[in-house]
Every structure is written in C-alpha cells, then in structure tokens.
C-alpha cells in the first residue's frame, strides 16, 4: 500500500497510540523513512503529546486541595450524614 502525506497525517494519532494494522503501520514507516516533512510532523506531535502528559503542564492550582477540604469540612459539619 502506498500512502501519500495526507494519509499519513490522518494516521499519525493512531500511530502514536500504537493503534494501527501492521500493514498500515509498515506503509507509514516506509513513507516516513523518506519523507522528512511527515517525519517532522510525527516527531513534533509525539513530543507535544509527551509534554502535555507531564504532570507539571497541568498542575493543580496552588492551594486547591486545601481550599477544597476546608470547604468540605465546613459543609460536612452542617450536613446530614452522606446520602441520607
């Protein structure tokens, strides 16, 4: 199977997730081996996915947990037991 650049872009996300038929994967790899443009898009997309998965990128706001538990504390005091 010969894939053009557009086909490759469509499958980049599935490729990153390892969610491709072996034959499609092989065709993609063949394309990527000689197309620097698509290889750059794959690498940068994969790098971005890796960076946004890092806990530092979307950390909880400072004091989030303390405020949540303080609010909970005050509400629990005046509330009925859970689920009643």
């Amino acid at each position: 199977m010969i894939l053009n650049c557009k086909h490759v872009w469509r499958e980049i996300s599935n490729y990153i997730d390892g969610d491709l038929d072996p034959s499609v994967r092989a065709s993609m790899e063949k394309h990527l081996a000689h197309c620097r443009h698509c290889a750059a898009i794959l690498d940068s997309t994969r790098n971005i996915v890796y960076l946004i998965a890092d806990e530092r990128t979307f950390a909880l706001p400072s004091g989030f947990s303390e405020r949540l538990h303080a609010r909970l504390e005050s509400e629990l005091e005046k509330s009925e037991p859970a689920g009643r």
Partner: protein
Amino acid sequence: MDGQPLTEAEMISRIVAGERELFHALIKPCERAVFLTAYSVLKSEADAEEVVQEAVLKAYKALGSFRGESKFSTWLVKITLNEARMRLRRSRSESEVSLQELMDDGDGDYTPAVLTDWREIPSEALDRKELREILQQALDELPEKYREVLISRDVRGMNIQETAHLLGISEGMVKTRLFRARLLVQKMLAPDFLTRGWKGTKG
C-alpha cells in the same frame, strides 16, 4: 483499626454510616482527575475549582446512591463533567453554542505545520513556566469537544474506551477527535516557535 488501608467500598459504607471525616480521604486521590475534567470544559482554573467543590459536595450528598458499579473516581468525574457542562451552558450565549455546534468532525482541509523546533523538547523544559503556559494556551484555544478528548486521553492518561464512556461518545469518535485535537495543537504551536525559536529563548 488494624492498620490495613480500607477498601473503597469499606470507606464508602462507613461514610454513609456516619463517619463523615473519611470522605476527605476518599476524594483525595481523585483531585487531579476532577480538576482536569472541569478545566477541560471551562478552561478557567477558578471556575474549574468552584465546580469541583460543588461536584464533590453533590457526590457526598448522593453517596448513598452510589452502587459501586464503577470506581468511585469514575462516578465523581462524571458528576464533575456534568456540573461543568451545566455551568458552561449557563454562562455562554446561544450564538456561541451554535458556533461550537457548527464545527463538525469532518476532516476539513487540514495541513499540519512543519515544526522542527518541537521535535526534541525534553520534559525538563517544563520547569519553565513559559513552556507550560504556551501548552496550556494551545489547549485552551481548542474547541471544547476536542479539548475534552485531549485532556481525558493525553493529560489524564485514560484509554480510548474510558474516554468514550466518560464523554458519552463512540470510540471511533474519540479517535477522530483525538486526531484532530493533537494535530490542531501541533499546528497552533508552530507560529510561536517558528518566530521566536524555542532554542533561542533559553534563560
């Protein structure tokens, strides 16, 4: 207590039986997941935080109806998602809603950007606030339905099936939206780095 940590089910039955304080420990491991879920809809830390507080209180009040068919965290995240979506609906005008709806899941005529600068940014670079803000901003600019999928899948690390279940869409739809979201973010990040050059802004 015999020193063994309580199971989730044990904790829940004891909370329902009156040990309210245990609820703090029950929600503790879910905090990041619920925050990110609310944030994925509202893209405001302050709004997300308020919604999380409301959702957690709602979950407390409804805990007696929790049947343990899913994990507690899954249930709490679902409540949070619904709360966040309700708040969003209340806050935005009809015109914005219809604009969102108009954006379909078709392929469009999409061309990714060539972005060599982003190929090898090491995770250590995330110690720099500037990089974190650029990534956050890119996600904020995504249409809601793409951001929800991207945050569930890539930020929270849920699998395709879990994401589909949470968002109430098919697995195929998750994959389509994920593909769009990832490539849109990749493309959005391009101009910034092509003009400024990541490597040139060290310090």
